[in-house]
């Protein structure tokens, strides 16, 4: 059955995974951090801006996934509805290129969400430590950026 999938099909699957998995991770992370942010704002609305910034940190993985999907689709002309007829080998290469941001995006957004919740707890008690609190979830971002880099480099290096 897998042999029936064309090169364009594999490439589309790669783009879809990048956008979907990274997006799911971000939705989970932002949702969890949002619950914590709501808890703080219930008691102290003046901390809204600070907790909002922290809540948004796990949202970047979804953007990275979208970016990789967009680059992959446009590079192989799939956005316009027609485009290049890719070989199965090229399609699989596109799939492989999209996997780093898909997988790392999902996992890092999950963990960044949990770290963001803890950081919101820091801001709730010590708002003057906002800068330091934000650094902890931001550290998780490093690995999402690394995987974004690899996915972009790989997608743009595949010969058409």
């Amino acid at each position, binding site marked *: 059955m897998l042999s029936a999938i064309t090169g364009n099909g594999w490439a589309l699957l790669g783009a879809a995974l990048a956008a979907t998995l990274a997006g799911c991770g971000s939705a989970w992370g932002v949702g*969890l*951090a949002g*619950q*914590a*942010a*709501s*808890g*703080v704002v*219930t*008691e*102290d609305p003046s*901390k809204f801006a600070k907790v909002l910034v922290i809540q948004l940190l796990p949202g970047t993985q979804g953007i990275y996934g979208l970016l990789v999907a967009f680059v992959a689709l446009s590079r192989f002309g799939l956005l316009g509805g027609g485009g290049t007829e890719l070989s199965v080998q090229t399609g699989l290469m596109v799939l492989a290129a999209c996997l780093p941001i898909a997988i790392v995006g999902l996992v890092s957004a999950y963990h960044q969400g*949990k770290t963001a*919740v*803890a950081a*919101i*707890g820091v801001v*709730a*008690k010590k708002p003057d430590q906002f800068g330091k609190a934000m650094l902890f979830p931001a550290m998780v971002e490093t690995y999402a950026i690394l995987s974004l880099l690899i996915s972009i480099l790989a997608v743009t290096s595949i010969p058409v």
Partner: protein
Amino acid sequence: MSKNQYAYAVARIRALEVSLFSASTIEQLMACKDEEACLRFLADKGWGGPDVPLEADAILGREREKIWETIGEMHMNMDVFDVLSYTSDFHNLKAAVKEVCTGKSGGTVFYEGTQIPGEEMLRIIREKDYGALPESMREAAAEAVDTLLRSCDGQLCDVIIDRATMEAILSAGEKSKEDVVRDYARSTVAVTDIKIAVRCARTGKSLEFMRRAMAPCPGLDVERLAHAALAGEESVIEYLQTEGFAEAADALRESASAFERWCDNRVIHAIRPQKYNSFSAGPLVAYVIARENEIKTVRIILTCRQNGLPDDAIRERIREMYV
């Protein structure tokens, strides 16, 4: 409830923890010259409310209500808080047993907001409808009623119900998935056993009495503690020193109020790790215990001020704060 579902509640508690009294706030309260100044200080800190008179009981009672209003607003499973309510539940049982068996009514004070209201508890005991009680209370209720009717021994009745209270707390703690509930239960039971041993040593109670009064507790050899109490208070102190309760031994040597303070501080030490936990009911339970401890400490200061006790005597009774 999934652990991640506590994110909202724990973050809200973190925001509330900012308004918990620290040691320095307690020092400021102690610096107030008289009770009226203390009450004004509390009102400035948001204690009581616009409709609450500037009286100690009214303000402290309102603060207690606020704890459960806040927890209630979080719409979470309240089972995790059961371990905190057993003391009040069993107090109501004890009050109802005494009122029914002695036939003296009117002076009984029941706690409000318990699992079984005072009037219902009286009906259960009067009609011996023990099946309407929670399982942990049934046997103790029947035994206490029987004992009081046969022997008129109020102290033995208290011992039976107090022992059942400790067993219920320990059982709830051991069953709980929350570390803080287990630690709280173990600390509470261990501290109560030590208190019983000290009191029995001072009043010269028998080994049989102590065995009946003390509940088995992990981390505490109750049998050895009872034997130590039989030999006297100094033996209890020696036992505590060798069994990892050196601070309790020091407090006992210092004074009775220092020992009472150690008992409460031990519970606060048990809940402190919850300050760094973001994904469980632990911080919520810890907050409730911390607020109760705060109210208790304020009550001590107010009572001492009412009775004109010197600052040193008040300081000796001040509990450690959670934050």
